[in-house]
């Protein structure tokens, strides 16, 4: 009897705790925002918001793809370079060949998808280690980006910036809307569709997935193509934000995307993760960057702090789900 009562008591105590625990990442985001809001008067302002909104779209879409790949048990290190390659294709398409913007944009995204297809074909179907394959692609795509742009920043012009410029004073741009829509869409894909379940299954036990009638190679390849495609879109967003195509764009972006995914609760071992979580991870990383810059922290210190936050996130995650 006493045993049961004790059990009930811990049950209610646990519930409050569990709600906090499950929303830990939202709580952390709020805490970070509150922290900077208190420390710096200028933080809670429209300027901050528009800086944030400018940086957000490319990292967000790339992180979506990264999250799917990580959940399937893979990794995609090539996304940063693919962003630059896609931006380069778009820039050169418009300014050198005079292609219409929509066509050039499609070509850029297509270039990303092809890079993803190469990753998938080699990694999933030829069973080469995906870490190495995408590491190779990181170099290949970066080299291609330099080749197509002739190692120069290619000026595109105002037309493409329309995509990234906020409407009125709202701070909301087409880029941001697309990114948010994709977050919601891919979270839905992951949670509530057959395909989403299959990604989780492959990442959590490949051999059991195979006996359950799932083709692990197809799933792994598909998520890599999606990741490439989204990196291509990230290239478009990056070019729109800058008004030009920079072959040095997106250096180190893969690490920010992995960090965002992991902060958002995605496991590097596969089988677990969430797109919404990754988006909150993106917010945390970006807010941290902007906030630290505003209170006058230097670049080196900023990097130390950001790195520490990532490690802290993993520690919390381990403690949450052993």
């Amino acid at each position, binding site marked *: 009897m006493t045993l049961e009562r004790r*059990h009930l008591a811990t049950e209610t105590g646990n519930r409050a705790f569990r709600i906090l625990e499950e929303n830990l990442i939202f709580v952390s985001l709020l805490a970070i925002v509150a922290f900077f809001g208190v420390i710096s008067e200028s933080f809670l302002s429209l300027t901050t918001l528009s800086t944030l909104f400018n940086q957000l779209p490319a990292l967000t879409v790339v992180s979506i793809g990264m999250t799917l790949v990580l959940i399937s048990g893979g990794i995609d290190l090539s996304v940063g370079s693919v962003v630059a390659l896609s931006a380069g294709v778009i820039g050169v398409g418009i300014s050198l060949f005079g292609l219409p913007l929509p066509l050039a944009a499609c070509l850029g995204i297509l270039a990303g998808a092809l890079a993803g297809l190469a990753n998938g074909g080699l990694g999933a179907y030829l069973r080469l280690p995906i870490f190495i394959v995408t590491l190779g692609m990181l170099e290949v795509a970066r080299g291609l980006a330099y080749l197509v742009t002739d190692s120069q920043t290619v000026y595109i012009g105002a037309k493409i910036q329309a995509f990234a410029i906020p409407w009125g004073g709202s701070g909301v741009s087409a880029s941001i809307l697309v990114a948010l829509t994709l977050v919601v869409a891919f979270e839905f894909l992951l949670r509530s*569709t*057959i395909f989403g*379940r299959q990604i*989780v299954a492959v990442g*959590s*036990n490949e051999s*059991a997935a195979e006996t359950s009638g*799932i*083709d692990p190679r197809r799933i792994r390849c598909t998520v890599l193509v999606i990741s490439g495609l989204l990196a291509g879109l990230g290239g478009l967003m990056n070019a729109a934000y800058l008004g030009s195509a920079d072959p040095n764009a997106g250096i180190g972006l893969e690490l920010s995307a992995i960090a965002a995914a992991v902060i958002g609760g995605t496991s590097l071992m596969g089988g677990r993760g969430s797109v919404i979580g990754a988006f909150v991870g993106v917010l945390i990383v970006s807010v941290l960057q902007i906030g630290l810059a505003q209170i006058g922290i230097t670049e080196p210190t900023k990097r130390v702090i950001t790195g520490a936050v990532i490690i802290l996130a993993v520690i919390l995650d381990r403690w949450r789900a052993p």
Partner: protein
Amino acid sequence: MRIVAKGICKSFAAPVLRDVDLEIPPGCIHGLVGENGAGKTTFAKIIVGLEDADAGSLLLDGQPYRPANTADSLGAGVAICAQELSLVDDLSIAENILLHISTSSWARVRRKSAHEKTSTLLDLVGLESANPRSRVGKLSLAEKQLVEIAKTLATDAKVLVLDEPTSALTAPQAERLHGILRDKASDGVSVIYISHRLGDVLSVCDRVSVLRDGKVRLTEECGALSEKALIREMAGADADFDALPRPTESSAPPHLSVRGLRTSRLPHPISFNCQRGEILGIAGLAGSGRTELLGAVFGLDKRLSGSVKIHEDGRITEVRNPRQAIKCGIGLVAEDRSKDGVFRDQTLAFNVTIAGLGGISDRTGRLIRSKEASTVGKLIDALRVRSNGVHQKMRELSGGNQQKSMLARWLHCGSGLLLLDEPTRGVDVAAKLAIHEELVRLRDTGITIIAVSSELEELQSLCDRILVLSNRKLVAELLRSNWSQQEILAAAFSEYAREDEPASVAVP
């Protein structure tokens, strides 16, 4: 050593153990039985420090004993042979055993002596044929289980806890283990022996305790007990052993036809037919190719020659890979469930529906949660899967309940042909009976079943026909009307010439 447990309590989401008292004197083999989810594994884990009790105490030779982990318990002379194997696939047999017993992480790996010690242990458990250097990942499930046992014996512990050590073993292999345990006991080792094979428990144990609803219901000398009495205590009610309806002869057109099937692991071509609505048994010794045959039919292994055809409504489909097999209505319950079946970190509902997601989604591929919860709920009720609900994590389910949910996976798919590799491995007697009844019921609705089992009694009571494999060859087909246990065994041994007879098998 004498080990005493007093008032052990443990709760997870719900209480699992309440006030468990047990005392095992030196030299005693103590059986622990109970339904799936009764808390046997939890109790075993508490003894070796893998779980911490909420209340109660343990005494080892009169001294308080509270291990924080397995290193602690090993140091105190208590070792476990776990239900879910804890071997590292990528290491060799010797390395796995060494990993377990080395006292210091910095100790140099002395290969030569490790290999010698491993060989002796492998000889002891009946794995003479295995090389200590070979990778564990390559072994069959039965061989892995023997390695796990060897690993436990390597510790020279004074208290041995064996959690379903024979679930993947054939009768002769199990008998050999029992011999070892008797020797150990006469040296003063105390043994806790957890099993669902009640016959084994009664023959090898000195005393036995029954766990039900987290309490010890009975502790008695084995001599005074019958299997029936144990079952009554486990279930809390009389289970009817003769409830299984006798299978009837069927004369439907063939459902599955296998012709000249050959894979790299089945070098001799195999041909057989299976009628719709038939339960076909496959018998053979461990390593005789039973698992490989099911895998080959399901399309897991690359086929070297031959064909596997499904006849459905006058149409004939050739099965080439698992996806196609599932489309044709074939389902495989794999022998090694943790490797090929279970998604540990996902929910029960996820595990049951993963092969038949179409059944819980609309035409656009969107999952319907309410439908998922209700279909899974119905299935786990029917199979009596004990859980805290369909959203409980699979790794938190007891071994037998995981096994039942593997069957639920294919029932959910509506598969017309079930390939079952040891379908009742680790399942308690009452649930086993429930599964048998369910299988017979399915058979009566026209579902075809091919079952592999190491228990001849199970095959004999369940099947309409039995195929016998010996040394990867199909050697006999026996009908219900004319089989006998001797005949099946004789066939199972027939292809092992004297010299290459698997030493793991003592002729019974």
